């Protein structure tokens, strides 16, 4: 392994780095010129729709071009990009690999909607890299094979640990890849007007041209290109918005000022003695009535189900919607807008009683939420508001009653804090266990570069993640100050557009002609997608944001598909079925599997499975429970052995899956089964200790691993040893 000590390797690495730097600088300049050119064309009258098409076509063609240029028939190039990706570029590739459509489009929206409590995602998805750096990346790089199951197979011996690793890798990656392809379909259809299903397959083509020909090598160089696009697309609108609002072009610093403005507005809106507060209160009263109506409706539904008349009840409700539509159509002066709305209601009517109940419950929760005061953005773990409610309803409450209400609030607040902690831990450990991320550290030239590369990875990810909270606050500032209190007769252009695109809903409920906060319903995707328009930027920037979202989704999907295909072709086919397979054969099996997995994932995504966000979250808990204990103890505890790994991985997976099964309603579980009130998305908080215990107990009840295995542990611990064994895969 110490073979390449000569000066020529050093100088060739440096030359390669300089060459890459030149290419990507040129590429970035070219891309910016392209955007400016489109901006000029827009001023000359180019239609927005055409701009959308040009953006999508140009970026996908670009990725395809890189894919074709990087095609390879070399195994090491195909699986690990020839292990010569410099730390900086591997960092960018990891950044793109890591940041999915959910990070790019959804993150700021989540923060807008949930304030402090949404920060669990920001912390979890960045802090995990500390674990990658300290516990995994350098050691995996020294080990230097192709996949994560490779390490489990070599460290713990036998096919069983490898097989469990393959299985866990596929479960995690497949749920995750479906969400990415779903995101691709959504973005494509939104910006080009194509059908969602066609968008899914168009995106799939974009993913495949890249990974199919060149494997990891093509994916790496495309991901670098995709990172550059996505970070430019994210930053431009936020910086512009920040200048507009605060006069400071550094949003991450400037938004403190906006946050104070938001907090002041929150107070005003919650105070019925102010003009705005009084208007809010009138809307809240309407929401309260609506919530009561939904509660009654749900009660009727439950009674019907109890009496065994669920299906009849469902048919009856559907008939009501149909009757209303007929009535609207028969009116002397048909209202086209109302008819279209009713038609949509009928078409979207839930297919069965269970889904109807879910829909109504959501409506009830929504109305209840809007009936309450505005939540403060920066305040963590707010309680239930029991004390406030009590004081309002019964100003003469006894001290005991007040104490009881206070205790209730504190319990709710502590429960939220516990869930925040659990979620952050699961997301962090999950980050450090997802195979498609760990795999990237096999591609650097050395252990030294692997360490540096984790730094660059987090640095590039950090650029986006520490901007998202600023964007959320700036957008909130605009909504609270410019939108709330303004007239329905003069809606800003971005609002009308967002309403047309079903990104937000806005209804004059108290008929005062003015907008109240409780009359606005915002979808999480709105924040990023509408920022260019809120900031008053031309459409070309909206197209750029769409291209950025697409880049985020495609790059993550690429990495995931490759992980699944490699686990099947390398770990299952080559290592277990046919170890004598020729290079040609190995690569064609891998490419064939890539195609099959991709089409399967696109098919599942096109069915629009409902619980996609939960599944993505679940992937983190599953990966954390299955991989983390076996991987980390494999490096840090020489005594860990075959039996320990098998028991640990199975126990971690089993506990995690069992907990989700009994608590998550998608699988028929109920919240009452929760342990310590932990939400199913953080099931890893139980799976993780089960995994560690499993490895420790399993190892201690069976003999210590052989001398060879212990030597392997020493081998991965030291970047270079005299007489070092060679684990480098060919």
């Amino acid at each position, binding site marked *: 392994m110490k073979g390449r000590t000569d000066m020529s390797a050093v100088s060739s690495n440096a030359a390669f780095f300089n060459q890459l730097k030149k290419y990507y600088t040129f590429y970035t300049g070219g891309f910016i010129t392209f955007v400016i050119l489109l901006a000029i064309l827009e001023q000359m009258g180019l239609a927005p729709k055409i701009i959308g098409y040009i953006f999508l076509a140009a970026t996908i063609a670009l990725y395809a071009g890189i894919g074709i240029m990087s095609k390879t028939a070399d195994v090491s190039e195909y699986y690990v990009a020839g292990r010569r990706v410099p730390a900086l570029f591997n960092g960018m590739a990891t950044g793109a690999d890591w940041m999915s459509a959910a990070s790019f489009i959804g993150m700021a929206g989540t923060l807008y909607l949930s304030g402090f409590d949404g920060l669990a995602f920001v912390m979890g998805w960045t*802090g995990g*890299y500390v674990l990658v750096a300290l516990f995994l990346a350098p050691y995996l790089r020294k080990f230097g094979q192709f996949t994560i199951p490779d390490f489990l197979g070599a460290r713990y011996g036998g096919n069983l640990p490898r097989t469990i690793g393959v299985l866990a890798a596929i479960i995690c990656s497949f749920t995750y890849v479906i969400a990415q392809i779903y995101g691709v379909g959504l973005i494509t259809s939104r910006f080009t007007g194509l059908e969602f299903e066609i968008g899914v397959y168009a995106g799939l083509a974009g993913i495949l041209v890249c990974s199919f020909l060149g494997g990891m090598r093509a994916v790496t160089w495309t991901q670098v290109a995709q990172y550059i696009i996505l970070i430019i697309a994210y930053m431009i609108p936020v910086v512009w918005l920040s200048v507009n609002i605060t006069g400071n072009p550094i949003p991450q610093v400037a938004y403190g000022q906006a946050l104070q403005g938001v907090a002041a507005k929150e107070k005003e809106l919650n105070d019925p003695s102010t003009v705005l507060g009084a208007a809010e209160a009138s809307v809240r009263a309407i929401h309260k009535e609506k919530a009561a109506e939904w509660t009654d409706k749900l009660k009727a539904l439950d009674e019907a189900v109890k009496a065994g008349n669920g299906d009849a009840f469902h048919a009856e409700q559907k008939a009501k919607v149909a009757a209303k539509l007929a009535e609207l159509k028969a009116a002397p002066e048909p209202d086209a807008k109302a008819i279209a709305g009713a038609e949509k209601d009928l078409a979207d009517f839930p297919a069965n009683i269970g889904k109807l109940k879910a829909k109504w419950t959501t409506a009830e929760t929504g109305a209840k939420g809007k009936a309450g005061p505005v939540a403060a953005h920066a305040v963590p773990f707010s309680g239930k508001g029991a004390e406030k409610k009590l004081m309002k309803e019964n100003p003469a409450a006894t001290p005991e009653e007040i104490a009881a209400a206070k205790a209730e609030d504190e319990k709710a607040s502590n429960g939220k*804090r516990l869930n925040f902690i659990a979620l952050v831990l699961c997301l962090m450990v999950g980050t450090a266990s997802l195979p498609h991320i760990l795999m990237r550290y096999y591609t650097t030239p050395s252990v030294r570069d692997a360490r*540096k590369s984790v730094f660059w990875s987090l640095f590039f990810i950090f650029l986006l993640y520490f901007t998202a909270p600023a964007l959320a606050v700036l957008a909130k500032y605009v909504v609270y100050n410019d939108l709330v209190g303004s007239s329905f007769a003069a809606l800003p252009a971005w609002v009308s557009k967002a309403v047309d695109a079903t990104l937000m809903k806005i209804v004059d409920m108290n008929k005062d002609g003015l907008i109240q906060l409780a009359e606005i319903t915002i979808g999480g995707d709105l924040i990023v997608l509408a920022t260019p328009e809120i900031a008053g930027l031309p459409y070309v920037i909206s197209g750029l944001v769409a291209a950025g979202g697409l880049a985020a989704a495609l790059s993550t999907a690429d990495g995931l598909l490759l992980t699944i295909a490699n686990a099947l072709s390398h770990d299952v086919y080559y290592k277990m079925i046919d170890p004598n397979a020729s290079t040609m054969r190995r690569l064609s099996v891998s490419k064939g599997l890539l195609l099959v997995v991709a089409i399967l994932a696109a098919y599942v995504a096109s069915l629009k499975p409902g619980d996609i966000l939960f599944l993505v979250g679940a992937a983190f808990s599953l990966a954390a429970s299955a991989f983390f204990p076996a991987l980390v103890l494999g490096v840090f505890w020489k005594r860990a052995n075959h039996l320990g790994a098998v028991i640990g991985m199975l126990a971690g997976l089993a506990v995690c899956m069992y907990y989700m099964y009994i608590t998550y309603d998608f699988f028929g579980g109920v919240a009452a089964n929760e342990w310590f009130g932990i939400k199913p998305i953080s099931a890893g908080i139980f799976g993780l200790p089960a995994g560690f215990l499993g490895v420790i107990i399993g190892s201690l009840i069976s003999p210590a691993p052989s001398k060879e295995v212990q030597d392997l542990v020493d081998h991965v611990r030291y970047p270079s*040893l005299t007489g070092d064994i060679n684990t480098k895969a060919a």
Partner: protein
Amino acid sequence: MQLTDKHREYWNRNLRLTAVLLGIWFVATFVVIYFARELNDIVIMGFPFAFYMGAQGSLIIYVLVIWYYARRMNQLDLEYGVHEGED
């Protein structure tokens, strides 16, 4: 392959460094979250402290922790002669 005392010392120093950095990570994450309600009463430049940590401060600490680990370990490699030839 025989490990010398020097090798063991290298590994122990690695473990110590890892433990210290993990401690910083733990404080920046979990201690901050646990006391978030109390820490938020401190306001710096318009930012409630716990909110700022969750949104940006802790993230900056993570980046610095990884940067320091890479730098220090790459130095230790040279100091103990376990560095790779290339790069």
